[in-house]
Protein backbone atom coordinates (compact mmCIF):
# COMPACT_ATOMS: atom_id res chain seq x y z
CA UNK A 1 0.00 0.00 0.00
CA UNK A 2 2.93 2.29 0.73
CA UNK A 3 4.06 1.90 -2.85
CA UNK A 4 0.83 3.29 -4.23
CA UNK A 5 2.07 6.87 -4.89
CA UNK A 6 5.10 5.49 -6.71
CA UNK A 7 2.89 3.16 -8.76
CA UNK A 8 0.62 6.07 -9.62
CA UNK A 9 3.62 8.08 -10.84
CA UNK A 10 4.75 5.22 -13.03
CA UNK A 11 1.23 4.81 -14.35
CA UNK A 12 1.14 8.46 -15.33
CA UNK A 13 4.46 7.97 -17.09
CA UNK A 14 2.83 5.27 -19.20
CA UNK A 15 4.03 2.19 -17.35
CA UNK A 16 1.32 -0.42 -17.90
CA UNK A 17 2.83 -2.87 -15.45
CA UNK A 18 2.42 -0.31 -12.67
CA UNK A 19 -1.26 -0.01 -13.53
CA UNK A 20 -1.57 -3.78 -13.41
CA UNK A 21 0.08 -3.79 -9.98
CA UNK A 22 -2.43 -1.22 -8.75
CA UNK A 23 -5.25 -3.38 -10.07
CA UNK A 24 -3.84 -6.45 -8.37
CA UNK A 25 -3.60 -4.58 -5.07
CA UNK A 26 -7.03 -2.98 -5.02
CA UNK A 27 -9.47 -4.89 -7.24
CA UNK A 28 -10.51 -7.25 -4.47
CA UNK A 29 -11.33 -4.41 -2.10
CA UNK A 30 -13.30 -2.45 -4.68
CA UNK A 31 -15.11 -5.56 -5.87
CA UNK A 32 -16.13 -6.36 -2.29
CA UNK A 33 -17.35 -2.82 -1.82
CA UNK A 34 -19.40 -3.01 -5.01
CA UNK A 35 -20.79 -6.42 -4.10
CA UNK A 36 -21.79 -5.26 -0.62
CA UNK A 37 -23.61 -2.34 -2.17
CA UNK A 38 -25.42 -4.22 -4.91
CA UNK A 39 -25.66 -7.80 -3.66
CA UNK A 40 -25.25 -9.03 -7.24
CA UNK A 41 -22.08 -10.58 -8.59
CA UNK A 42 -22.43 -9.56 -12.25
CA UNK A 43 -23.42 -6.03 -11.31
CA UNK A 44 -20.48 -5.80 -8.92
CA UNK A 45 -18.09 -6.90 -11.67
CA UNK A 46 -19.45 -4.32 -14.08
CA UNK A 47 -19.26 -1.62 -11.42
CA UNK A 48 -15.71 -2.59 -10.47
CA UNK A 49 -14.66 -2.27 -14.09
CA UNK A 50 -16.40 1.10 -14.42
CA UNK A 51 -14.76 2.35 -11.23
CA UNK A 52 -11.29 1.42 -12.46
CA UNK A 53 -11.89 2.96 -15.86
CA UNK A 54 -12.82 6.15 -14.05
CA UNK A 55 -9.74 5.83 -11.86
CA UNK A 56 -7.56 5.33 -14.93
CA UNK A 57 -9.00 8.42 -16.59
CA UNK A 58 -8.68 10.62 -13.52
CA UNK A 59 -5.45 9.26 -12.11
CA UNK A 60 -3.63 12.53 -12.67
CA UNK A 61 -6.00 14.26 -10.24
CA UNK A 62 -4.81 12.08 -7.36
CA UNK A 63 -2.83 14.10 -4.82
CA UNK A 64 -0.95 12.05 -2.26
CA UNK A 65 -0.76 15.09 0.03
CA UNK A 66 -4.53 15.13 0.42
CA UNK A 67 -4.92 11.52 1.47
CA UNK A 68 -3.93 7.94 0.90
CA UNK A 69 -4.57 6.26 -2.43
CA UNK A 70 -7.02 3.67 -0.98
CA UNK A 71 -9.09 6.50 0.51
CA UNK A 72 -9.16 8.33 -2.82
CA UNK A 73 -10.02 5.07 -4.55
CA UNK A 74 -12.84 4.36 -2.09
CA UNK A 75 -14.19 7.90 -2.59
CA UNK A 76 -14.29 7.52 -6.37
CA UNK A 77 -15.88 4.09 -6.00
CA UNK A 78 -18.44 5.33 -3.49
CA UNK A 79 -19.42 8.28 -5.70
CA UNK A 80 -19.81 5.95 -8.64
CA UNK A 81 -21.92 3.56 -6.58
CA UNK A 82 -24.17 6.38 -5.42
CA UNK A 83 -24.59 7.53 -9.02
CA UNK A 84 -25.38 3.98 -10.02
CA UNK A 85 -27.86 3.64 -7.16
CA UNK A 86 -29.71 6.77 -8.25
CA UNK A 87 -29.67 5.71 -11.88
CA UNK A 88 -31.11 2.26 -11.21
CA UNK A 89 -33.44 3.16 -8.38
CA UNK A 90 -36.58 2.49 -10.40
CA UNK A 91 -35.42 -0.86 -11.69
CA UNK A 92 -34.14 -2.23 -8.45
CA UNK A 93 -35.92 -4.67 -6.23
CA UNK A 94 -34.47 -3.97 -2.85
CA UNK A 95 -34.92 -7.37 -1.31
CA UNK A 96 -33.51 -9.36 -4.22
CA UNK A 97 -30.34 -11.34 -3.89
CA UNK A 98 -29.65 -12.56 -7.37
CA UNK A 99 -26.91 -15.00 -6.79
CA UNK A 100 -27.38 -18.29 -5.11
CA UNK A 101 -25.75 -19.13 -1.80
CA UNK A 102 -22.94 -21.00 -3.49
CA UNK A 103 -22.10 -18.12 -5.78
CA UNK A 104 -20.56 -16.09 -3.03
CA UNK A 105 -16.96 -16.09 -4.12
CA UNK A 106 -15.19 -15.96 -0.82
CA UNK A 107 -12.14 -18.13 -0.65
CA UNK A 108 -13.07 -21.30 1.19
CA UNK A 109 -10.66 -22.19 3.93
CA UNK A 110 -9.30 -25.69 3.35
CA UNK A 111 -9.27 -26.44 7.08
CA UNK A 112 -12.91 -25.52 7.66
CA UNK A 113 -15.29 -28.40 8.35
CA UNK A 114 -18.15 -28.78 5.85
CA UNK A 115 -20.79 -28.05 8.53
CA UNK A 116 -18.94 -24.95 9.67
CA UNK A 117 -18.56 -23.95 6.02
CA UNK A 118 -22.30 -24.14 5.46
CA UNK A 119 -22.85 -22.13 8.63
CA UNK A 120 -20.36 -19.55 7.45
CA UNK A 121 -22.13 -19.28 4.12
CA UNK A 122 -25.45 -18.80 5.86
CA UNK A 123 -23.98 -16.01 7.95
CA UNK A 124 -22.63 -14.29 4.84
CA UNK A 125 -25.97 -14.58 3.11
CA UNK A 126 -27.71 -13.28 6.17
CA UNK A 127 -25.34 -10.32 6.37
CA UNK A 128 -25.74 -9.46 2.70
CA UNK A 129 -29.53 -9.63 2.87
CA UNK A 130 -29.52 -7.49 5.97
CA UNK A 131 -27.23 -4.92 4.34
CA UNK A 132 -29.55 -4.78 1.32
CA UNK A 133 -32.36 -3.70 3.63
CA UNK A 134 -30.49 -0.68 4.96
CA UNK A 135 -30.87 2.76 3.44
CA UNK A 136 -27.93 3.69 1.16
CA UNK A 137 -26.53 6.29 3.57
CA UNK A 138 -26.42 3.89 6.49
CA UNK A 139 -25.30 0.96 4.35
CA UNK A 140 -22.28 2.74 2.93
CA UNK A 141 -21.21 3.96 6.36
CA UNK A 142 -21.40 0.45 7.83
CA UNK A 143 -19.67 -1.14 4.85
CA UNK A 144 -16.80 1.35 4.90
CA UNK A 145 -16.33 0.98 8.64
CA UNK A 146 -16.98 -2.71 9.38
CA UNK A 147 -16.27 -4.38 6.06
CA UNK A 148 -13.62 -2.12 4.52
CA UNK A 149 -11.95 -1.27 7.86
CA UNK A 150 -11.61 2.45 7.15
CA UNK A 151 -11.01 4.94 9.98
CA UNK A 152 -13.61 7.57 10.85
CA UNK A 153 -11.58 10.37 9.27
CA UNK A 154 -11.05 8.32 6.12
CA UNK A 155 -14.78 7.60 5.91
CA UNK A 156 -15.42 11.30 6.39
CA UNK A 157 -13.13 12.01 3.43
CA UNK A 158 -14.79 9.35 1.31
CA UNK A 159 -18.31 10.47 2.09
CA UNK A 160 -17.50 14.15 2.19
CA UNK A 161 -19.28 14.70 5.51
CA UNK A 162 -18.05 15.70 8.99
CA UNK A 163 -16.69 13.02 11.29
CA UNK A 164 -19.60 13.49 13.71
CA UNK A 165 -22.04 12.66 10.96
CA UNK A 166 -20.00 9.60 10.10
CA UNK A 167 -20.15 8.36 13.70
CA UNK A 168 -23.87 8.97 13.85
CA UNK A 169 -24.50 7.14 10.57
CA UNK A 170 -22.34 4.20 11.57
CA UNK A 171 -24.14 3.87 14.89
CA UNK A 172 -27.59 4.11 13.33
CA UNK A 173 -26.56 1.73 10.59
CA UNK A 174 -25.28 -0.86 13.02
CA UNK A 175 -28.40 -0.62 15.17
CA UNK A 176 -30.62 -1.05 12.11
CA UNK A 177 -28.47 -3.90 10.87
CA UNK A 178 -28.69 -5.61 14.27
CA UNK A 179 -32.49 -5.32 14.27
CA UNK A 180 -32.76 -6.72 10.73
CA UNK A 181 -30.43 -9.61 11.50
CA UNK A 182 -32.34 -10.45 14.66
CA UNK A 183 -35.64 -10.40 12.79
CA UNK A 184 -34.26 -12.59 10.01
CA UNK A 185 -32.74 -15.06 12.44
CA UNK A 186 -36.08 -15.23 14.24
CA UNK A 187 -37.81 -16.02 10.95
CA UNK A 188 -35.29 -18.73 10.10
CA UNK A 189 -35.87 -20.61 13.30
CA UNK A 190 -34.94 -20.60 16.95
CA UNK A 191 -32.32 -23.31 16.51
CA UNK A 192 -30.17 -21.18 14.21
CA UNK A 193 -30.83 -18.01 16.17
CA UNK A 194 -29.80 -19.76 19.34
CA UNK A 195 -26.57 -20.86 17.80
CA UNK A 196 -24.94 -17.47 18.08
CA UNK A 197 -22.45 -16.82 20.78
Amino acid at each position, binding site marked *: MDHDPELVKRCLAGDNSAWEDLLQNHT*RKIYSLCYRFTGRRSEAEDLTQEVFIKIFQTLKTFDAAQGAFPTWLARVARNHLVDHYRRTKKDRVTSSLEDELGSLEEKPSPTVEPVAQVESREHKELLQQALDRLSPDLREAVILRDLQDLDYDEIAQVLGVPEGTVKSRINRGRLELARVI*KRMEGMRGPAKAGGRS
Partner: protein
Amino acid sequence: MTHLELENLASEYLEGQLDVVRRVQVEEHLRDCGACRELISDLQHAMELCQAAEDLEPAPWLIAKIMRATVGERKPTLREQLATFFRPATQPRLAYAVAMAIFSFSIIVNAAGLNLRKLTLADLNPRTWFYQANRTGHLLYARVEKFYYDLRVVYEIESRLRQLRSEPSKQEQEAPKPEAPPGGTTDRKAPGDTQLASVQGLMTTAASSIGAVTRMVAKGRSPSP
Protein backbone atom coordinates in the same frame (compact mmCIF):
# COMPACT_ATOMS: atom_id res chain seq x y z
CA MET B 1 -28.92 7.94 31.28
CA THR B 2 -31.93 7.32 29.06
CA HIS B 3 -32.46 4.47 26.57
CA LEU B 4 -32.06 6.93 23.68
CA GLU B 5 -28.78 8.28 25.05
CA LEU B 6 -27.45 4.77 25.41
CA GLU B 7 -28.56 3.92 21.89
CA ASN B 8 -26.62 6.90 20.55
CA LEU B 9 -23.46 5.85 22.39
CA ALA B 10 -23.75 2.12 21.70
CA SER B 11 -21.17 1.90 18.87
CA GLU B 12 -18.62 4.07 20.63
CA TYR B 13 -19.09 2.00 23.80
CA LEU B 14 -18.43 -1.26 21.94
CA GLU B 15 -15.41 0.21 20.15
CA GLY B 16 -14.01 1.46 23.48
CA GLN B 17 -14.01 5.09 22.41
CA LEU B 18 -15.98 6.53 25.33
CA ASP B 19 -14.27 8.41 28.13
CA VAL B 20 -14.37 6.88 31.60
CA VAL B 21 -17.34 8.93 32.88
CA ARG B 22 -19.54 8.04 29.92
CA ARG B 23 -18.51 4.40 30.05
CA VAL B 24 -19.44 4.11 33.71
CA GLN B 25 -22.83 5.71 33.02
CA VAL B 26 -23.50 3.26 30.19
CA GLU B 27 -22.50 0.27 32.29
CA GLU B 28 -24.70 1.43 35.17
CA HIS B 29 -27.66 1.72 32.80
CA LEU B 30 -26.97 -1.68 31.30
CA ARG B 31 -26.95 -3.26 34.77
CA ASP B 32 -30.47 -2.10 35.40
CA CYS B 33 -31.96 -2.33 31.86
CA GLY B 34 -32.50 -5.72 30.25
CA ALA B 35 -33.78 -4.24 26.95
CA CYS B 36 -30.61 -2.19 26.52
CA ARG B 37 -28.45 -5.21 27.37
CA GLU B 38 -30.24 -7.12 24.62
CA LEU B 39 -29.71 -4.23 22.23
CA ILE B 40 -25.98 -4.13 22.96
CA SER B 41 -25.80 -7.90 22.55
CA ASP B 42 -27.55 -7.74 19.14
CA LEU B 43 -25.29 -4.92 18.06
CA GLN B 44 -22.20 -6.85 19.05
CA HIS B 45 -23.45 -9.87 17.11
CA ALA B 46 -24.00 -7.74 13.99
CA MET B 47 -20.51 -6.26 14.26
CA GLU B 48 -18.99 -9.71 14.70
CA LEU B 49 -20.78 -10.89 11.57
CA CYS B 50 -19.35 -7.94 9.65
CA GLN B 51 -15.85 -8.45 10.96
CA ALA B 52 -15.99 -12.17 10.17
CA ALA B 53 -16.91 -11.44 6.57
CA GLU B 54 -13.83 -11.60 4.40
CA ASP B 55 -13.24 -9.68 1.24
CA LEU B 56 -14.90 -11.31 -1.72
CA GLU B 57 -12.74 -12.76 -4.42
CA PRO B 58 -13.51 -11.34 -7.87
CA ALA B 59 -13.64 -13.50 -10.96
CA PRO B 60 -10.11 -14.32 -12.17
CA TRP B 61 -10.69 -12.67 -15.56
CA LEU B 62 -11.81 -9.35 -14.08
CA ILE B 63 -8.34 -7.77 -13.89
CA ALA B 64 -7.55 -8.83 -17.46
CA LYS B 65 -10.86 -7.37 -18.59
CA ILE B 66 -10.13 -4.07 -16.85
CA MET B 67 -6.64 -4.03 -18.38
CA ARG B 68 -8.18 -4.46 -21.83
CA ALA B 69 -10.73 -1.77 -21.15
CA THR B 70 -8.07 0.70 -20.02
CA VAL B 71 -4.55 0.10 -21.31
CA GLY B 72 -5.51 -2.42 -23.99
CA GLU B 73 -7.79 -0.08 -25.84
CA ARG B 74 -5.64 3.01 -25.68
CA LYS B 75 -5.65 5.30 -28.69
CA PRO B 76 -2.92 4.29 -31.13
CA THR B 77 -0.16 6.76 -31.87
CA LEU B 78 0.15 8.55 -35.22
CA ARG B 79 2.94 6.22 -36.23
CA GLU B 80 0.83 3.17 -35.44
CA GLN B 81 -2.13 4.63 -37.32
CA LEU B 82 0.05 5.28 -40.39
CA ALA B 83 1.49 1.77 -40.20
CA THR B 84 -2.03 0.33 -40.04
CA PHE B 85 -3.14 2.49 -42.97
CA PHE B 86 -0.25 1.51 -45.24
CA ARG B 87 -0.08 -2.14 -44.24
CA PRO B 88 -2.18 -3.31 -47.25
CA ALA B 89 0.32 -1.59 -49.58
CA THR B 90 2.89 -4.21 -48.71
CA GLN B 91 0.61 -7.06 -49.76
CA PRO B 92 1.14 -8.59 -53.29
CA ARG B 93 -2.60 -8.52 -53.80
CA LEU B 94 -2.49 -4.73 -53.99
CA ALA B 95 0.29 -4.84 -56.60
CA TYR B 96 -1.82 -7.18 -58.75
CA ALA B 97 -4.84 -4.94 -58.37
CA VAL B 98 -2.86 -1.84 -59.35
CA ALA B 99 -1.32 -3.60 -62.35
CA MET B 100 -4.74 -4.75 -63.53
CA ALA B 101 -6.17 -1.27 -63.04
CA ILE B 102 -3.35 0.29 -65.09
CA PHE B 103 -3.77 -2.35 -67.80
CA SER B 104 -7.53 -1.82 -67.98
CA PHE B 105 -7.10 1.94 -68.00
CA SER B 106 -4.56 1.80 -70.81
CA ILE B 107 -6.89 -0.41 -72.88
CA ILE B 108 -9.77 2.01 -72.37
CA VAL B 109 -7.57 5.00 -73.22
CA ASN B 110 -6.25 3.32 -76.35
CA ALA B 111 -9.69 2.18 -77.44
CA ALA B 112 -11.05 5.66 -76.89
CA GLY B 113 -8.16 7.11 -78.83
CA LEU B 114 -7.32 9.57 -76.12
CA ASN B 115 -4.02 11.38 -76.06
CA LEU B 116 -3.31 11.94 -72.41
CA ARG B 117 -0.64 14.55 -73.16
CA LYS B 118 -3.06 16.70 -75.11
CA LEU B 119 -6.27 16.12 -73.27
CA THR B 120 -9.12 18.44 -74.26
CA LEU B 121 -12.54 19.03 -72.79
CA ALA B 122 -14.14 17.10 -75.63
CA ASP B 123 -12.09 14.04 -74.70
CA LEU B 124 -13.97 13.83 -71.44
CA ASN B 125 -17.31 13.38 -73.21
CA PRO B 126 -18.41 9.72 -73.17
CA ARG B 127 -19.92 10.21 -76.63
CA THR B 128 -16.43 10.99 -77.94
CA TRP B 129 -15.11 7.85 -76.24
CA PHE B 130 -17.77 5.74 -77.92
CA TYR B 131 -17.12 7.33 -81.32
CA GLN B 132 -13.38 6.89 -80.99
CA ALA B 133 -13.73 3.30 -79.79
CA ASN B 134 -16.01 2.49 -82.72
CA ARG B 135 -13.57 4.16 -85.16
CA THR B 136 -10.58 2.37 -83.68
CA GLY B 137 -12.44 -0.93 -83.89
CA HIS B 138 -13.24 -0.45 -87.57
CA LEU B 139 -9.69 0.69 -88.39
CA LEU B 140 -8.27 -2.32 -86.61
CA TYR B 141 -10.62 -4.64 -88.49
CA ALA B 142 -9.65 -3.03 -91.82
CA ARG B 143 -5.97 -3.30 -91.01
CA VAL B 144 -6.29 -6.98 -90.12
CA GLU B 145 -8.29 -7.64 -93.25
CA LYS B 146 -5.71 -5.89 -95.41
CA PHE B 147 -2.92 -7.80 -93.71
CA TYR B 148 -4.70 -11.05 -94.38
CA TYR B 149 -5.26 -10.35 -98.05
CA ASP B 150 -1.74 -9.03 -98.46
CA LEU B 151 -0.27 -12.32 -97.40
CA ARG B 152 1.54 -14.01 -100.31
CA VAL B 153 0.13 -17.42 -99.53
CA VAL B 154 -3.44 -16.16 -99.59
CA TYR B 155 -2.77 -14.36 -102.82
CA GLU B 156 -1.32 -17.52 -104.35
CA ILE B 157 -4.16 -19.72 -103.16
CA GLU B 158 -6.77 -17.35 -104.45
CA SER B 159 -5.10 -16.96 -107.83
CA ARG B 160 -4.75 -20.73 -108.20
CA LEU B 161 -8.37 -21.22 -107.27
CA ARG B 162 -9.37 -18.64 -109.83
CA GLN B 163 -7.19 -20.42 -112.35
CA LEU B 164 -8.73 -23.77 -111.53
CA ARG B 165 -12.20 -22.37 -111.96
CA SER B 166 -11.37 -20.76 -115.30
CA GLU B 167 -9.47 -23.75 -116.87
CA PRO B 168 -12.33 -26.15 -117.57
CA SER B 169 -14.43 -23.41 -119.17
CA LYS B 170 -11.46 -22.37 -121.46
CA GLN B 171 -10.84 -25.92 -122.51
CA GLU B 172 -14.46 -26.34 -123.27
CA GLN B 173 -14.46 -23.18 -125.34
CA GLU B 174 -11.07 -23.61 -127.23
CA ALA B 175 -10.92 -27.33 -127.97
CA PRO B 176 -13.54 -28.76 -130.38
CA LYS B 177 -15.26 -31.73 -129.02
CA PRO B 178 -13.71 -34.82 -130.68
CA GLU B 179 -15.99 -37.55 -131.51
CA ALA B 180 -14.99 -40.52 -129.59
CA PRO B 181 -14.40 -43.57 -131.76
CA PRO B 182 -16.62 -46.30 -130.82
CA GLY B 183 -14.81 -48.62 -128.46
CA GLY B 184 -11.39 -46.79 -128.95
CA THR B 185 -9.20 -45.00 -126.41
CA THR B 186 -7.61 -41.55 -126.39
CA ASP B 187 -4.06 -40.59 -125.22
CA ARG B 188 -5.15 -37.17 -123.97
CA LYS B 189 -4.55 -36.49 -120.29
CA ALA B 190 -7.60 -36.60 -118.09
CA PRO B 191 -8.66 -33.28 -116.47
CA GLY B 192 -8.16 -34.90 -113.06
CA ASP B 193 -4.41 -35.22 -113.67
CA THR B 194 -4.07 -31.52 -114.46
CA GLN B 195 -5.89 -30.57 -111.30
CA LEU B 196 -3.71 -32.82 -109.19
CA ALA B 197 -0.54 -31.22 -110.56
CA SER B 198 -1.96 -27.75 -109.88
CA VAL B 199 -2.78 -28.57 -106.28
CA GLN B 200 0.69 -30.04 -105.72
CA GLY B 201 2.27 -26.86 -107.09
CA LEU B 202 -0.08 -24.84 -104.89
CA MET B 203 0.97 -26.76 -101.83
CA THR B 204 4.65 -26.16 -102.54
CA THR B 205 4.06 -22.46 -103.04
CA ALA B 206 2.02 -22.26 -99.84
CA ALA B 207 4.76 -23.88 -97.84
CA SER B 208 7.37 -21.49 -99.19
CA SER B 209 5.02 -18.52 -98.57
CA ILE B 210 4.36 -19.54 -94.96
CA GLY B 211 8.10 -19.77 -94.41
CA ALA B 212 8.60 -16.31 -95.89
CA VAL B 213 5.79 -14.81 -93.77
CA THR B 214 7.14 -16.39 -90.59
CA ARG B 215 10.58 -14.93 -91.25
CA MET B 216 9.11 -11.49 -91.96
CA VAL B 217 6.98 -11.54 -88.86
CA ALA B 218 10.01 -12.53 -86.86
CA LYS B 219 11.91 -9.58 -88.34
CA GLY B 220 8.95 -7.27 -87.64
CA ARG B 221 8.21 -6.37 -91.21
CA SER B 222 4.93 -6.49 -93.00
CA PRO B 223 4.77 -8.79 -95.96
CA SER B 224 4.52 -7.36 -99.43
CA PRO B 225 2.11 -8.82 -101.93
